């Protein structure tokens, strides 16, 4: 049987543990051998076996663990030490070991799961179970400032790659027994865990079931982190609009939780997913609510403006210069005509050329190693701006138009929505090049029809604007905080009143 087992595990070398469905053999040597086989000991260098002899009850034992993800100090102090020094003869193993938490597992398979998660397994002669000692210790960074969603006013903690730190950051803000942290394994080979957070007395059960169903229906070997999980669980994978919100701010996640949303967390993800998401959740930023009412709404207006500027300025330039020259006041028209005189390209080509250049600068700026970062600025500003104009490749006004659009696009904070806006911009530019304002309007109307038909986990994308629901009407503008007394009705929360 061992031979067959070995052959099989050779065939699928990566997961020998799937063949260990049987229970733990009371024979100490057999069990230990099974563990060693499972982890390819001693080829696998960080798999550690510590043999010992328990004093008092006089039994052989072994502690097996992966030393790179386990806290060796803890095992030493609270397990190995008391076991060896034990003198009493009638005593349970649970009473010898002083480790903070431990449990028993009856199959090798279950035990390996725990070992993979950084815990240690204690095998004892003559027992048909394995003791699991909780001592996991994965390396990671500490809680730092958010990189992508920085605020001037408000908390400056961000999620990091350790999921338990992240949960603790959430628990720190909601000290309530109704905050539930549900976990489930979503991948078959890597056994990635996803943690679903919600408030039991607020979140809608149907929504919860929907999310659970979708998370558990995944049939894949590995999902490393939330950015990948997002693409597994979203409804329209080819859509230009995002339908799951991705944020690295625990305070933002908590404010969503308190409204009845569901938050997903995962190991190795310095962020969380918020479901369901509407257009407005991408449009808003954490700071909108931290700033006082007039200031918060002022930034909202600015952001909406930048939305429109990003999408429309270049397209309007193309449309106006190509089709609707009458729209421009005569003096300005003459100025534009004078600068365009020497440029050999039609306006559409000119704009597309500069837009692509701008996108290249942005992409290169992201990827460039920090020491040569300033080069990008010089290349971008001087060569593409100044020199292109002097070489009569583009007219100066095009540089202004494209720069304005590009600058405004940075005001759209959310990464996904930022891409959406940037991509839509090209759609409008081409529509404007083909049919002027008429084409732009056609694209706009079709886009609106498409946008309202989107749904994120059953929630219409533009709600509560339309279809309207009972809510605090936090859409384009927000209301004064005491007046935001309702949770969003489109989530169908169990308790809609907040205040």
């Amino acid at each position, binding site marked *: 049987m061992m031979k067959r087992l070995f052959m099989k595990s050779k065939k699928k070398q990566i997961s020998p543990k799937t063949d260990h469905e049987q229970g733990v053999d009371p024979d100490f040597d057999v069990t230990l051998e099974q563990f060693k086989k499972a982890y390819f000991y001693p080829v696998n260098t960080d798999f550690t076996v510590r043999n010992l002899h328990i004093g008092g009850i006089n039994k052989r034992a072994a502690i097996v663990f992966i030393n790179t993800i386990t806290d060796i100090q803890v095992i030493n102090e609270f397990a190995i030490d008391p076991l060896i020094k034990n003198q009493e003869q009638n005593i349970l193993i649970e009473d010898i070991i002083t480790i903070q938490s431990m449990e028993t597992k009856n199959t090798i398979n279950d035990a390996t799961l725990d070992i993979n998660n950084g815990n240690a397994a204690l095998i004892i002669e003559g027992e048909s179970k394995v003791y699991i000692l909780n001592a996991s210790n994965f390396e990671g960074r500490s809680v730092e400032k958010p990189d992508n969603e920085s605020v001037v006013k408000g908390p400056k903690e961000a999620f990091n790659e350790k999921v338990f730190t992240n949960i603790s950051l959430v628990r720190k803000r909601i000290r309530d027994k109704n905050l539930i942290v549900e976990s489930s394994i979503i991948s078959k080979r890597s056994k990635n865990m996803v943690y679903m957070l919600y408030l039991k007395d607020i979140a809608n059960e149907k929504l919860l079931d929907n999310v659970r169903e979708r998370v558990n229906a995944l049939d894949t070997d590995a999902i490393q982190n939330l950015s990948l999980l997002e693409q597994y669980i979203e409804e329209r994978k080819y859509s230009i609009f995002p339908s799951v919100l991705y944020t690295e701010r625990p305070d933002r996640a908590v404010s969503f939780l308190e409204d009845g949303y569901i938050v997903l967390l995962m190991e190795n993800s310095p962020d969380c997913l918020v479901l369901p998401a509407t257009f407005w959740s991408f449009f808003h930023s954490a700071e909108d609510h931290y700033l006082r009412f007039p200031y918060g709404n002022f930034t909202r207006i600015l952001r909406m403006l930048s939305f429109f500027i990003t999408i429309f300025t270049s397209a309007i330039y193309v449309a106006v210069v190509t089709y609707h020259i*009458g729209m421009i006041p005569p003096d300005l028209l003459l100025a534009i005509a004078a600068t365009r005189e020497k440029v050999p390209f039609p306006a559409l080509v000119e704009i597309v050329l500069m837009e692509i250049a701008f996108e290249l600068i942005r992409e290169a700026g992201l990827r460039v190693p920090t020491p040569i970062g300033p080069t990008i600025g010089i290349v971008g500003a001087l060569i593409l701006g100044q020199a292109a104009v002097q070489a009569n490749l583009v007219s100066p006004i095009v540089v202004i138009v494209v720069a304005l659009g590009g600058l405004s696009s940075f005001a759209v904070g959310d990464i996904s929505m930022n891409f959406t806006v940037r991509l839509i911009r090209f759609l409008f530019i081409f529509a404007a090049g083909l049919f002027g304002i008429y084409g732009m*309007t*056609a694209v706009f109307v*079709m886009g609106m*029809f498409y946008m*309202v038909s989107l749904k994120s986990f059953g929630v219409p994308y533009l709600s509560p604007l339309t279809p309207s629901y009972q809510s605090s009407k936090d859409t384009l503008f927000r209301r004064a905080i005491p007046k935001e007394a309702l949770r969003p009705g489109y989530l169908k929360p169990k308790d809609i009143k907040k205040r």
Partner: protein
Amino acid sequence: MGEPKDKIGLKEYTAIALFLIGIKATDDVPAMLFDSLKNAGWMGPIISGLIAILPLFLLLDIAKKYQSKNSIDIFYHLLGKYVGFFVLFLLWVAGFLYIVLDTATYSDIVATMYFPRTPAFVLYAILVGVSAYGAKRGLEHIGSVSWAVFPYLQATLLFAIILTIRHGNSGFLFPIFGPGEWEVIKESTMSVSIYIDFLYLFLLFPYVKSVKDFKKGTWIAFFIALFNLAISMVSFVMIFDYNTAMSLNYPYHEAIRSITIGFLTNLETFFFPFWLIATDIKFAIYFYINIFLFGKLFKIEHFEYIIPAFATLILFLGLIPESPTFSVFHMRHFFGQILSPVFFFLPILLWVLANVKGEMRK
């Protein structure tokens, strides 16, 4: 899609109704009224509106009486299987022809006023294509889009009207009754078909959240539309005087060409996209209602699949009339005069039958 799954709310329904009727101020309906009513043209929508209150009231009453029933079934129930089918079929044919003529008019507006050098076929095809796409998305989404954009469109319309009035001369409004009181009333009566869209909207009442919302929405839309029509026609008379207004086919588009604010002298390209959005949504609704009716008549469950075929048919039919600015204008005028009595008498007939049958059941 098929039948709407979710019902639409009050806001969405009102916006839909307003798009159907309010936008008529910007096509050639004002021209038709000016033709016969001279400078009293702006009274046309008010007087015909007053007349339209009766059929409208009766329709809403029927909707209230049969709130649990489907609107199509009401026709069958009241008129019998064959007559009911026949009447609905005629309504469908009328609606279809109306769409053909209307799309022809609107694409003619775009072609003559804004894109004289672009082939009319392309402009027409884009208009029909966008509207067909909207119709295919279904009633809930048409409603949502309508409500999402409506406030901005209404604001720009009012803005244009205010600017027009500012440039206008109120003396052009007098004599207030134009060709004479009797003439005004007579001609206005013939144009009550401006509001015939409510008869088609009646078909949608089971898909509005409640009959109460349907009633409320209908009245709100009716009065806002009436106001829009009247005030914009007042502004046209004030800026052009009736002689010019009579000879202009699309006075709104001429008006926004004439107005200025400060250093901006050509505002039409600013107003044009807003008007175009309204147009696309309006035809999306028309398409939807028409195909919905067709689907109901011939028991086609997933009627959205015939939308592309219909759109193509409408496109080619609408391209047939030569020089649409004149020919379609006259056809529409003639058509409107036929439909006016239909809009007036059909609800009365239905209501009387509903009451008679209701009593018989008791």
